Each structure stands twice: as structure tokens, then as C-alpha cells.
């Protein structure tokens, strides 16, 4: 097994399993409770599949009231709770433990309100990211953050991890698009934080909750900003002979006062895999590929893309290819958005998520390659170049424990490198268990203790997703 340790499950809690299940059944009924081993198995891991644990039980409340009653009960029983959206976390954010109850929000997925005059939507938190945009599309509106997993992932999980996406260069990440939440604290208290107004009334508790990885409360409803769709959007594909040239081109585009909606980067191994999957017309004879997307009217798009192509030309781009039709645009994005899935067809991989200052890009890519080679592994890079959020995919065989350990070590080295050059461990996936033990590479104990005081304020017994975010040693707990 792999080397990220989990706390030893509490046998005393496991011994009370039947009693705890009975208490939950009294609140949510049979339809809201999963106890059979077969059905619980679906909840034993998330998208960090190397780690698994069978939860004590899975509870799927249908209302905020039920969530409140469940948490109040489990708080009194001192049972840990792991919140779960769609289980797409790449960081182990939804990984349960054997003495924990998984609380899933999947039965709460309704659109509660769409207000186009105020440009907000109110949703139950189990709604998928894409469903928000679909719900408001008839008025040509959309919800901006667009993680690659947007077909499956929920707004609850997006809020927990402060998720990003390809288009956040222009539109910001979840925290910039979230206006309010209804949140249940571990003692059952239901809080409305924020709302349709833009400013926080006092301390920005909403800003604290967003990205707190299910450790401060369970969000059951969200109020988000919805934006009017641009008249149109089209990408251009720009191929380069080196990472340096691509990186310099990104800097130069921004230096010209152009902030595109998205600037995505792929290296040669990633291009090859994505092209064979999506047939998007990606050039196969280049070392680095940029997908740069701009928005506006037809004329505006043409003018902007012409400017970008001219800038890219000065960095030696070869045969830039502008998407001329909706179908071509979709194909280009299909390749990018299905990149992780396409990679998964050829190999198991571990997806890293560090962010670096964009100026350090070429040097960091060289070092990432060296790190992986040093561990006898290969790597493909697909990431958000505009904001320096890297996603190196370390390829390995999940069924070979020795390879898994090598991959984890290579991953840790890559993330340490990101911190070393002035970046951070995670740009949009969250810490979860995956980066938990690296937190002291980015923070010192004083920094972490200050964060932990807030954990204790919201959840004095540390029952919400307790094994995540902070190293297990040295916690300022209780």
C-alpha cells in the first residue's frame, strides 16, 4: 500500500455501527441510508483511486433539515463525517475512513431560483457544475468556473475545493463567482452566509468557507453569479518548437494588454494522446501547443485572433490554426477537456496541480521531466498556462505498489519544486490527503495553527473530514 498514512479507525465507533445506522435511519429513512457492503463500495474512494476505505455508512439526506439532524446526531455520537459531492476529487478530498459516515449531497440537486435581473442563481449543492449553465442557457447566461470534470462534479465539491477550470483566466475561480451559501455546521446549526449582494457584511466568512475542503460545514445551497454569454468564442491552436517559445508567447500576449478567456498548454506526449482520442487537428510535430480562446462578436474575435497570431509569429509558431466553425471549436475543446480521460486509456496516472509564476515555466518543465525520469517514470503536461496552474500527469501502473510509491515521490518532488520557485502545492484541486503531508513545505507551523484555530471554531471536535488538509502530527486541535 502507499505511503500517505490515515489515522487508525476508532474500533469503539466501528463497534457501534448498527446503533449509529439506526439513528441515521430514524432521520433519513431507508431511502437516504446505505449500509450494505456492496452499495457502500461505491463510496470507498474518489478520483484518487489508489486509496480506499469502506465507510461505516453512507447517508444521503434530501433536505437541509435532514443534514442538520444528521450532523447534530453524529456530533453527539462523536462520529467523523466525510462530505461527498460526486466523488471526483483528485486529491482524496472525499476519501472516507472506516469509522466515518459519508454524507452525500446527491439527492439535493434542484435549481431553486434563477434571477436574470440580479444575475444570480440559487441551487441545491448536489447539482452538477454543467447543469447550472444548462439551467440558465435559455437566457444566454452561464456559470463561469468550468473544471474538466464539470459533467459530473457538483457545486458542493467545487465550493469545498474552490475549483477552477480552463476559463478562469478571465472569469475567476469558484470563490470569485460564489455569493452565498446555506451551510450546516457540525452541531446542526444552519447558517446563511452571504446572499445575492456583492459584499460581505462583516468578516468574509464566505471566503473562508470556500476552499475549506468540507472541514467547516456542509454546504446545502449555493447562490452563484451567472453571466451573460459572450456573442461568440473561438480558439486558435499555436504550435511551438520549445516550451520556452510557448512560455514567452504567453507572457507576450498578456504584455500586449490582451487577457484571453483561456490559454491552455499541452506538451508533445499529451498532444499525441489527445489527438488520437479527439481528432481535433492538433499538430503532432511540435513540442508545445497553446490553445488560446477569445470572445466577442465575429469581427472582434477575428481582430483579436489576428493580433494573437501575429504575436505568436514573433515566437516562431508554425501554422497557427484558427477554429473557423463551431464544430472546429468544439473539437479543439473536446481534446483538451477529455485529456485526462484520454490519458487514462493508455496509462494510470497521478495528476499534479501545483501553480508556479508563469515566468518560470520553461525551467520548471525541464525539471519536472528530469524528476520523473529520475524515478523511472514518464510525464505528460496539460495545464492552464495563463495562470501558471500546472497539471503534470505522472504515468504509472496502479497495480504495482513499487511504481505507485515512485509516482507519489515524483509528485511530491514536483510540488516541492513549485513551492521553491514561488508557487504553491495546489491551484485548484485542493490538499485532501494527497498534499497534506507537504503543507509544511509551503507553510510554517504558525501559519497552520492559525488555520487550525478556525477549524476548531467551526467544528470543535474535529469531526468534519478530519484526516485531510493538515499533517496529522502537530495539530492544534480541540
Amino acid at each position, binding site marked *: 500500500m502507499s505511503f500517505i498514512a490515515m489515522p487508525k479507525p476508532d474500533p469503539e465507533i466501528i463497534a457501534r455501527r448498527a446503533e449509529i445506522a439506526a439513528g441515521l435511519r430514524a432521520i433519513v429513512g431507508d431511502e437516504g441510508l446505505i449500509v450494505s457492503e456492496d452499495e457502500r463500495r461505491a463510496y470507498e474512494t474518489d478520483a484518487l483511486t489508489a486509496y480506499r476505505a469502506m465507510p461505516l455508512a453512507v447517508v444521503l439526506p434530501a433536505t437541509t433539515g435532514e443534514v442538520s439532524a444528521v450532523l447534530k446526531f453524529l456530533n453527539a455520537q462523536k462520529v467523523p463525517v466525510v462530505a461527498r459531492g460526486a466523488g471526483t476529487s483528485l486529491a482524496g478530498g472525499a476519501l472516507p475512513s472506516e469509522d466515518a459516515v459519508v454524507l452525500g449531497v446527491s439527492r439535493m440537486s434542484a435549481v431553486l431560483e434563477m434571477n436574470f435581473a440580479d444575475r444570480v442563481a440559487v441551487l441545491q449543492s448536489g447539482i452538477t457544475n454543467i447543469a447550472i449553465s444548462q439551467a440558465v442557457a435559455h437566457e444566454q447566461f452561464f456559470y463561469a468556473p468550468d473544471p474538466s470534470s464539470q459533467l459530473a462534479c457538483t457545486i458542493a465539491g467545487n465550493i469545498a475545493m474552490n475549483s477552477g477550470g480552463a476559463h478562469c483566466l478571465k472569469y475567476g475561480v469558484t470563490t470569485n463567482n460564489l455569493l452565498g451559501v446555506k451551510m450546516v455546521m457540525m452541531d446542526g446549526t444552519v447558517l446563511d452566509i452571504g446572499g445575492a449582494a456583492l459584499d460581505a457584511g462583516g468578516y468574509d466568512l464566505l*471566503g473562508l468557507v470556500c476552499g475549506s475542503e468540507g472541514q467547516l460545514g456542509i454546504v446545502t445551497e449555493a447562490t452563484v453569479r451567472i453571466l451573460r454569454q459572450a456573442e461568440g468564442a473561438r480558439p486558435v491552436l499555436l504550435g511551438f518548437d520549445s516550451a520556452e517559445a510557448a512560455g514567452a508567447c504567453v507572457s507576450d500576449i498578456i504584455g500586449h494588454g490582451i487577457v484571453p478567456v483561456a490559454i491552455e498548454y499541452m506538451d508533445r506526449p499529451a498532444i499525441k494522446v489527445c489527438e488520437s482520442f479527439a481528432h481535433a487537428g492538433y499538430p503532432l510535430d511540435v513540442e508545445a501547443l497553446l490553445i488560446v480562446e477569445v470572445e466577442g462578436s465575429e469581427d472582434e474575435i477575428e481582430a483579436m485572433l489576428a493580433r494573437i497570431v501575429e504575436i505568436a509569429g514573433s515566437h516562431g509558431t508554425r501554422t497557427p490554426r484558427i477554429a473557423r466553425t463551431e464544430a472546429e471549436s468544439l473539437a479543439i475543446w473536446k481534446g483538451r477537456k477529455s485529456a485526462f480521460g484520454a490519458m487514462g486509456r493508455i496509462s494510470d496516472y497521478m495528476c499534479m496541480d501545483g501553480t508556479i*509564476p508563469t515566468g518560470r515555466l520553461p525551467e520548471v518543465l525541464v525539471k519536472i521531466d528530469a524528476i520523473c525520469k529520475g524515478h523511472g517514470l514518464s510525464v505528460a503536461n496539460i495545464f492552464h498556462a495563463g*495562470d501558471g496552474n500546472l497539471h503534470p500527469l505522472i504515468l504509472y501502473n496502479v497495480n504495482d505498489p513499487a511504481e505507485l510509491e515512485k509516482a507519489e515521490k515524483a509528485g511530491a518532488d514536483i510540488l516541492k519544486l513549485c513551492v521553491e520557485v514561488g508557487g504553491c502545492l495546489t491551484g485548484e484541486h485542493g490538499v485532501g490527503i494527497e498534499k497534506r503531508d507537504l503543507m509544511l513545505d*509551503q507553510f510554517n507551523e504558525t501559519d497552520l495553527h492559525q488555520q487550525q484555530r478556525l477549524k476548531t471554531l467551526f467544528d470543535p471536535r474535529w469531526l468534519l473530514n478530519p484526516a485531510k488538509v493538515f499533517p496529522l502530527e502537530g495539530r492544534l486541535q480541540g
Partner: protein
Amino acid sequence: MTANASAKPLAPRDENDVIAAVADARAAGTPLEIVGGATKRTIGRPMQTAATLSVARLSGITLYEPSELVLGAHAGTPLKDIEKELANNRQRLAFEPIDYRGLLASDGEPTVGEPTIGAVAAANLSGPRRIYAGAARDALLGIRMVTGRGEVVKSGGRVMKNVTGYDLVKLSAGSWGTLGVFTEVIFKVLPETHSERTLVFEGLTDASAVASMSAGLGSPFEVTGAAHMAAGIDGPAKTLLRIEGFDEQMVYRSGELKKLLRTFGVPALLADDASRALWLKVRDATFFAGTDEAVWRISVAPSHGAAIGAAATAAGGRVFYDWGGGLVWVAMPAASGDGGAAALRAVLPADGHATLVRAPETLRAAVDVFQPQPPAHAALTRGVKDAFDPDHILNPGRMYAGM
């Protein structure tokens, strides 16, 4: 102002000095008023502090990478220095922070200092571009602060995307120096736009103005400012919609907006400098400068704005709407006993809030300057304060009584 107004402020030279000053104050149990340029001291409840700690000497840009859109500075760096450096590179703080000096100067105690970048973060300043570019909290990437425990805590960093650990950056933005003393702040910056245009509709009623601004902000033409001044605020009633971008975009987008909004009349078109001058007045609430009225900054969803405007007008107040900033600005007659607090707060929806940004000290002591909170929120607020500043050394009582 505060009890210590005449005393010489503590003027730490660096972060270590700040640590020592806070630790001393904590040991002695003597609360500190925290200032940068001291231009916003009159916002908040009056405080009883033993000394003033100024970060003005913690000055200088620490990091500026134009191609990475990031700028960091010591907290006491004058905002004007930063804006100048950004302008040299055709960049800006896109969130358009309000300059309160003009508005607050009428308080009988003119503000003479220079606003600092630390205070931009501490007060979570924003402006009319809020709807498009967010507030300071949205652009603030990283902070270093000395908490009331006398400890340095850092959060965030210098990169655009960072979800490593809890977001203490957002929590401390807008905490008005009550959680920690910022020593360094790092902001995302953006390119200046090449040009701008403002459509000016004259003579609209409040209801028509609201409809026109809603239509504009809900259009695909990227309106970056929307404001309405009823008759008497700035001459005849004026409704403004701003667009920014490259020259060819301005021609196209202003044309499209005119078509979209033709039922509201034919707007005048202001370009570049004329447009900028007008938006400065909206940003800084200049219409209310130089009077003795009590001034409220009210944050609500747009659909509640008209009801608040009506209530304020009925109570004898003057109103303008910075719709893109999500704000209703209200000036209430000086003679009204509570500065209009009861009348305005009575019509606020549960998620709205009204902040009394300008009033004499007696009024600020008598009414809630910041929106009062329900018990569960108040308990968390107090818990947050205690987590950062257990002995209530930093700006005690500025936001809420007793903390």
C-alpha cells in the same frame, strides 16, 4: 476621534518592529489603533486605544512582474506610488478602489495622508467595475500579517490560482485591521484598457434607469460600470453605462448598446478622459462630499435597490446607485436623529447590509456602523476575532462593540 489622537504614533520600520510593538501592547494590555495613511480613520465605531501604530514606514514595492500580472508591496506603500508604477507599464488595479478622502474630508477633520495599499486590502475597497472585476478581495493573492498574538501569519502567495489551505486572504480582506496588521500584500493586476466609452441617458426615472442598467449589464457587451444619479445629485437625472476595450470594440459595442437600449432614449457618448472623470465621481461618491449629511454605503442585490432608494428619499435623503458596484449610496440629513439607520435597515433584505461610512463621532457611537449580525453569525465573528486577536489589542470595537 480616538482617545490617543494627539499621541505620537508607533512607527515600526519593518515587520520585526511590528511584531515587537504588538507583543508589547499585548503584554501591557494596551490596545492599538492601526493606520497606514490614516485617511479612513473615521470609518467605524469610535475606539478607545492607548496608542496608534502606523505602518507608513513599511513602504516599497517588493515584487512586480508585469507579464505575470502580479504586484506585491509593503503594506504602507502609498497607493499613488503603486498606481504610478502600474501606469508606467500600462496596467492597473482593475477593481478600481474608492478614494475616500474627498468624502471624508467634510467630517471636520480633513484627511491629509496618502491612502496605502495595505488599507486597500484591509478595507476591501472596490469601485464601479466591481461587477466585472470584483473587489480588492478578489484580486488579493497573498498577505503577510502580524496577528494580535504577535505572530506573523502568511496566506496565499504570488500566483493566480492557489487553494492550498484555508483562505485567510479573503477572511482578512475587509477586516479593518481587527485581525492582524498587514505587513505585505500581493495583488493581481490587469492591463489598462485602450479606451472607454460611457453612454449617458438623461432624465430617466429611477424605475427606467434600473431597467436600462439591468438590460445593459445582462447584455454580452461587457458593461464595466452602471450608475444612476437622480435629478439633483449631479444636475438632471443621469444614467451611465460604461464599456472598455480596444478602439474597434468601442465603436461596435457602443452601437449595439444604443440599439439594445433605444427605448430609453438617445444617449450622449463620453469618450476616454471625459468618461474617466465622471466615473471617478461615482467611484468616490463625490456627490456627497463637502456636506454634513450622514453617508451610507448599502450593498444589496439590484432588485432591492429601488425600495431602499424610495425609503431613503421618503426620509429626506439623497440617493445614487452604483449598480455595477452593487451599491446604493445614501446621504441622510444631518438633523435626522439616528442618521437614518432605522429607516434604511428596515427595508434591507436579510442578505443586504448598510455601513455608515461618514458621520460625526457621536452618531457612530450611537448606531451600528457595520450591519448588526444575527446571533449565530455574531458568535462566529467573535470566534474569528478571538482566534486572531484573543486579547482584543487590534482596533478593538471598530467593527462591533466589545470585540
